[in-house]
């Protein structure tokens, strides 16, 4: 019984064929799901970025402001819209807005810098369902290549304070 001590030499009890077969199948599967992660790093197109830098929230906020001023083309819902050339682009999460609104071109490669100027925020692109964390003190560089045109919304999906549910943003791909 499982609730009493086993026989003295329980180690020597042979494993029956059924369990052996299942453990083998399970082991092979575990090796497969392990190997697929490094495989995808080399041959897959969607991988979490490995590029990140230390930056204070104040400095990051200043960089985003300068970037916004340089490329600003308009305003929507009180949030500045920028139309930057391919290369380094910046977005900041702060209570309770994602700014600026980015205008991107389909098929071009961008280095999207993601960070927060206050709390930990969750960066979730809707309806594509792509999720990353925006952590203060860390500049997270995502090299992205938008391949579909359209309007994408950004939702904050990490609780960041009372107005968390109002925290949205936008990326426009043309």
């Amino acid at each position, binding site marked *: 019984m499982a609730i009493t001590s086993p026989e003295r*030499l*329980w*180690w*020597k009890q042979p494993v029956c064929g059924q369990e052996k077969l299942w453990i083998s199948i399970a082991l092979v599967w575990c090796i497969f799901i392990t190997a697929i992660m490094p495989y995808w790093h080399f041959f897959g197109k969607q991988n979490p970025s490995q590029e990140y*830098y230390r930056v204070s929230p104040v*400095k990051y906020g200043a*960089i985003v402001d300068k970037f916004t*001023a340089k490329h600003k083309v308009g305003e929507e819902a009180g949030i500045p819209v920028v139309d930057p050339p391919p290369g*380094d682009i910046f977005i900041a999460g702060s209570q309770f807005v994602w700014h600026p609104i980015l205008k991107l071109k389909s098929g071009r490669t961008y280095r999207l810098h993601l960070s927060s100027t206050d709390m930990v925020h969750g960066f979730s692109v809707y309806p594509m369902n792509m999720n990353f964390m925006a952590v203060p003190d*860390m500049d997270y560089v995502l090299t992205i290549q938008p391949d579909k045109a359209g309007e994408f919304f950004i939702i904050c999906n990490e609780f960041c304070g009372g107005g968390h549910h109002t925290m949205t943003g936008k990326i426009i791909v043309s």
Partner: protein
Amino acid sequence: MIEESKKAEEKIPYWQVFYDDIMLLFFLSAAITFISFTVWGLMEIGNTPVMPDYTF
């Protein structure tokens, strides 16, 4: 039974002794977790380079 008494004399297999050693298992568990997850992770955070300046 004859077989039983024979079994009683037989030495307990090495692996069985290992599995019964709860303290050893505890130290291995703590060591693996702290080295593989916590300490390595903290080292990576600590070694993060500083963001370069961007001028516009």
